[in-house]
């Protein structure tokens, strides 16, 4: 209740939430509201020479290079991109949070081993790992999502590790231990909440980069497979068209940016609201 009230007092957060909701609704209701079928290569969708058609009455956002309606593709693509951006990135943050926290809390040989493993993963070129993993398992949306998660958790783990090390030194953790609190309790009730700001920052800031990473994978033939649309691969497929058919880059670009920005606004607001020391301040 308090959270909702505080949230509604922030115009930027409300704006972010509205955009996020619109995107989610758009994604869920895509079959109902999209003007065409997502993969339908319309006869009228290309000029006689085979060029895509710019925004007009029939195609509000224009068509792509196969003559498909861009608006429809963007609506359906929201599903993929949300899964990649939110689920895959969320999983990466969760793994990073888990590993970093565990290593930072345990310290000693176990913690060290975890961090050495993280260092190893960090030194491993991420893109290569993604390509190989995706090639080994036949690419599908969920595999790609998991691959991205596998690749992206490393930085989060590093940062969380450092932060946890700092937290564990703090008096209130010592106080908990002196009260006889078990490890689980300390980790989940006391350490974790303090890591939430970091998690939120990475969770929201990573959305855009993750969506674009998925597109890079598609481009290498290890991403989400066509004709399944995702915002990233719509941009990627047609990025060289940005002078001859700018709408193919601009609209999905705006979609990614706006969504990522909105998640970020919501995240920033949540971070402040959930932090009791920020209460009452702006």
């Amino acid at each position, binding site marked *: 209740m308090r959270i909702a009230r505080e949230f509604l007092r922030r115009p930027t957060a409300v704006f972010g939430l509205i955009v996020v909701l619109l995107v989610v609704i758009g994604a869920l209701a895509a079959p109902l509201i999209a003007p065409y079928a997502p*993969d339908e*290569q319309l006869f009228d969708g290309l000029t006689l*020479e085979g*060029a895509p058609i710019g925004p007009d009455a029939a195609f509000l956002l224009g068509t792509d*290079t196969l003559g498909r309606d861009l608006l429809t593709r963007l609506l359906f693509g929201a599903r993929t991109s949300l899964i990649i951006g939110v689920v895959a990135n969320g999983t990466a943050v969760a793994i990073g949070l888990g590993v970093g926290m565990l290593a930072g809390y345990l310290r000693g040989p176990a913690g060290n081993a975890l961090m050495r493993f993280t260092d190893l993963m960090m030194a491993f070129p991420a893109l290569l790992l993604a390509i190989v993993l995706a090639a080994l398992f036949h690419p599908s949306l969920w595999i790609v999502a998991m691959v991205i998660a596998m690749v992206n958790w490393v930085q989060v783990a590093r940062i969380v590790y450092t932060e946890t090390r700092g937290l564990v030194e703090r008096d209130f953790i010592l106080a908990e231990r002196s009260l006889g609190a078990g490890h689980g309790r300390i980790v989940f009730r006391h350490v974790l909440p303090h890591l939430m700001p970091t998690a939120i920052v990475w969770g929201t800031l990573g959305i855009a980069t993750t969506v674009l990473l998925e597109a890079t994978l598609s481009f290498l*033939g290890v991403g989400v497979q066509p004709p399944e649309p995702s915002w990233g691969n719509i941009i990627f497929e047609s990025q060289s068209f940005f002078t*001859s058919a700018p709408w193919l880059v601009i609209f999905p670009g705006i979609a990614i940016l706006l969504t990522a920005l909105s998640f970020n606004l919501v995240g920033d607001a949540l971070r402040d609201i959930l932090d009791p020391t920020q209460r009452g301040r702006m």
Partner: protein
Amino acid sequence: DETPVKGATIVVTYKDDIATLDPAIGYDWQNWSMIKSLFSRLMEYTPGTADLVPSLAESFEVTPDGLTYTFKLRKGVKFSNGRDVVASDVKYSIERAVNPKTQGPGAGFFGAIAGFDDLSGGKAEGLSGIETPDDSTVVFKLSRPDATFLHVLAINFASIVPKEVVEAEGQDFGKKPVGSGAFILKDWVIGQKLVFEKNPNFYVADTPKIDGFTVEVGQEPLVALLRLQQGEVDIAGDGIPPSKFLEIKNGPDAADIIVDGEQLQTGYVALNTRVKPLDNVKVRQALNMAVNKERITRIVNGRATPANQPLPPLMPGYDKDFKGYAYDIEKAKALLAEAGFPDGFETALYASSTDPNPRIAQALQQDFAAIGVKAEIKALANANVIAAGGTEGEAPMIWSGGMAWIADFPDPSNFYGPILGCAGATQGGWNWAWYCNKDLDARAIAADSMSDPAKKDERAKLWGSVFTDLMADAPWIPVFNERRVVAKSKRMGGPGNIYIDPTRVINYDAIYVKQ
């Protein structure tokens, strides 16, 4: 004014690195033309055509049984290191191409030379079928007649290399090539550029027509085109990217910049004859009828013409009266029903992940969907598609675009053996349809044995019928014959076919800068 400017040098760009200029190894469409110009071979083609002429050889004779070829070498030809080219160089060069240690991909072309099996099997050090009675005579003894043998002697793998340099450089020969062709490699800055200079001693008069050319690598095609329009680049080797094609084609400079010509290429869908339900010929026929080739050519902005048989129109043996399978959805559905799939089926379509291939795959997918066949697209890196195609039972359908390249030499046999004959239907082979028709194989061998030049037309007919007949089994869906579009700067002169030479892509020996 169309007269060549003397002393001009030009700039050519490519995106990818030039792999190697070793003629026994280089086998992609960028280095193919360069190797052609660095080395000479016994036989060569007249620029812009598929007409074979003696080159390093002054003359040659063939015995009536077609088993012995005797070549007289041109006198006074020198390698760029100054040494004369002699008969033993020819023997050495071809043995090197066949020798497994070389790791050359072209060994198989020389299979007709006597002693081939011993050398490629590691049982001998040389080819017993090549003899050099004196410094200017080379005699080839074949173990079977081979109508394509003169073509084989004109492909890059038959280029003549100097033994002592090859042995001195070892594996690095491909980076420091020495030959006797029209150009000499002056400098190679890895990852940046290759500088070719005219060979002043080249034995063909008035060739080459430019003083040299620089190949800049690592150039994004879009940027290369931009530079070309500004006059910084003379030939954009990767052609015009789809996103720019219409803009340029409809632009004011189109006529000066674009060279658009046919090449020996067919884009096809390989239908795996060993995967259910594609093992049913009716299913394959139905799929053939389902594809709207007109629309697909529209997607590539009209840079291709619809195809109905494996052979491209320029290839001897092409049957222009052959109708193939017309686009007919109703008939396709009926055939599917006959085959027991009234509701269609699910399958997979593999394709290269480089543009425009995923787009073409999607167009195909939509066409198949129209007759109830749900094809899942697997757009993968080339290597992975090739691996899937060469594994039995793995890939039901493969769109060949981006991987099936241009013919090695303008002879129909080159379109059969590895990609449609029984020999190619093996693990790691390129017969992705896994099509093996013993009967046709026999006819193919028969056609290839007709080495008498007088029977040229008869042989072409015979070959043509092999390809049209195999369409009854429908192992492929021939989709289109892609035309090659090259972008050149306004100052470049000469007819289009030296930029899209049927046997060497860009003919560096023939291109020139006009006044």
